[in-house]
């Protein structure tokens, strides 16, 4: 078979125009898939930045909290109860709320997330956060997320130039001591981190007893699953105890399954596949139709149906390969453009590359298999 004339390649490339059309169809599909999956990934990464970078072994959440994007409050005293377990080394509280930011450059108001924690321990990882946190010991000082949307003002740029920035948050003038990188979420597209004390003043809520997240660090060598089980038994219905991995998994599930945004992008990916499939099918079907007498002649010569079917499938695979590479390269180029425009963390991962590859080849193969049926019309009895 390998020594045979490469019929599939020769037929496909004989007409440059036809080949270009077909490959373009695949390129468009590949590009659409990349953009859809890329945006989905980027939104996910951005919106779940904090949840994915919690510094701790176990996480305490209200039983009413279904997703990190909608944190329900619980009584702070529950966190300290964990200290009773011998496997627990330390516990921390993370306050999460929303406040109104006033852009110091143009006076526009915009909502952002506010995170409050004790300045001696960063409850989640973010660029430079650990180093900058002690600055929040001072009253009315905080750290701004430079990955917030540009509408908040050029805070990062100004700070990096060495100039001071002060903004009103909930009407309270706050000095920005530095910037970190977190990422825009859905309910609010800006973030701000400060000490518990500053947080409570900003939120105008002296009830330091209400908190949103508890973090538990275990002693070295402790069995996290066992501790989780013990604590879950202790808390019963009052609190949810999850490992940090479980928190991340649940966020991913929520985003892709429950949140409308997951559905929208999945649909977009499917549309991309359908477009590619339709174009490839059309080209292959038409090609076969235009060559029916010739294929019938091949059958008369003694070529098997299987041989001809294999030619069609080979053509589909050639198109898949020819479209995947340029489509992916274009996709990566567009990622860079989108990233600059939206501030979203758009980048290529191996997982996604494999996924797009599999989708592309499947789409083309199915297309080929369906187009193959047209070969039945190549009847050697009719060529006489």
């Amino acid at each position, binding site marked *: 078979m390998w020594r045979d*004339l490469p019929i599939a390649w020769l037929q496909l490339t004989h007409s440059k125009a036809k080949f270009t059309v077909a490959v373009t169809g695949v390129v468009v599909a590949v590009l659409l898939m990349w953009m859809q999956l890329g945006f989905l990934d980027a939104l996910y990464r951005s919106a779940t930045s904090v949840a994915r970078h919690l510094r701790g072994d176990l996480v305490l959440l209200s039983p009413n909290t279904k997703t990190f994007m909608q944190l329900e409050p619980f009584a702070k005293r529950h966190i300290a109860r964990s200290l009773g377990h011998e496997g627990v080394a330390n516990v921390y509280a993370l306050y999460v709320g929303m406040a109104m930011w006033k852009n110091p450059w143009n006076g526009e108001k915009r909502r952002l997330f506010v995170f409050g924690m004790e300045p001696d321990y960063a409850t989640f990882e973010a660029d430079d956060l650990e180093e900058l946190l002690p600055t929040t010991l001072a009253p009315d000082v905080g750290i701004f997320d430079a990955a917030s949307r540009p509408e908040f003002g050029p805070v990062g740029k100004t700070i990096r130039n060495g100039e001071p920035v002060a903004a009103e948050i909930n009407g309270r003038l706050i000095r920005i001591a530095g910037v970190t990188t977190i990422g825009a979420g859905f309910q609010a597209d800006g973030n701000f981190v400060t000490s518990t004390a500053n947080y409570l003043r900003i939120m105008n809520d002296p009830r330091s007893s209400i908190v949103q997240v508890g973090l538990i660090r275990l002693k070295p060598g402790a069995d996290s699953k066992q501790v989780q089980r013990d604590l879950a038994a202790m808390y019963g219905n009052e609190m949810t105890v999850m490992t940090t991995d479980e928190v991340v998994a649940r966020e991913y599930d929520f985003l892709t399954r429950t949140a409308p945004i997951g559905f929208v992008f999945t649909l977009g990916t499917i549309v991309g596949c359908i477009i590619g499939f339709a174009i490839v099918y059309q080209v292959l079907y038409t090609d076969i139709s235009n*060559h029916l007498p010739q294929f019938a002649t*091949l059958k008369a*010569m*003694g070529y098997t149906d299987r041989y001809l079917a294999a030619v069609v499938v080979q053509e589909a695979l050639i198109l898949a390969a020819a479209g995947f590479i340029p489509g992916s390269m274009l996709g990566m180029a567009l990622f860079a453009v989108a990233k600059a425009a939206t501030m979203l963390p758009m980048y290529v991962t191996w997982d996604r590359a494999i996924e797009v590859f599999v989708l592309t080849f499947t789409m083309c193969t199915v297309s080929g298999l369906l187009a193959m049926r047209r070969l039945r019309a190549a009847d050697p009895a009719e060529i006489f």
Partner: protein
Amino acid sequence: MTTITDTTAKPSTSTCGSDGPAIRVRGLNHFFGDGELRKQILFDVDFDIAAGEVVILTGPSGCGKTTLLSLVGGLRHIMEGSVQVLGRELFGASREEIIASRRQTGFVFQLHNLLDFLTARQNVEMSVQLDAAISVRERKHRAESMLAKVGLSNRLDYYPTALSGGQRQRVSIARALAGEPRLILADEPTAALDSHSGRQAVELVQAMAREQGCTVLMVTHDTRILDIADRVVRMEDGRMLP
């Protein structure tokens, strides 16, 4: 009737001279359509063609000669009767046997049916390629020498669109013969050609056939070429005339 079933899938490279006729047809009936629209095309056709004979089958349009040719070629399912080709019974034959029979047969059509995306040389190679035992170099060589025999050595790498009608027909003859078939079936090979090219084409088939010792059955209306045959058989209204 004993049936000698030849199960090899490759075209035989030996010249003809086997005992028994190359083609033997007995009691062949054929119908088109179903139910009330059913029409009988062939009525009790009986004939023999000896190995190495060149036979022309002629008759008015619609007399069934092309249908008969397609049945002998294994291109159409046989409904009733016996058709033995090169010792192989085609009635009720399996898919593999039909394909084996097709590979031993060279077809020349009215329309050349060359693949437009292959050069003359590649088109001819397509029939040689069916024999898996032939190396790539040998395959190319055979294609070239066959095209040389039909006078097209200077057109080896031309695409069909760059060839004249007569030249295309010659390529298709080369293709039919390159696989060294034992039987050649031709249907109106001159119909799409001018008289000179047409004459050339059939003389070529006759010469090649004599050289390889093959049997030729040619269907034609063209009365000018009847002289190339050993024997002329006539059909009318689905029956073979005695």
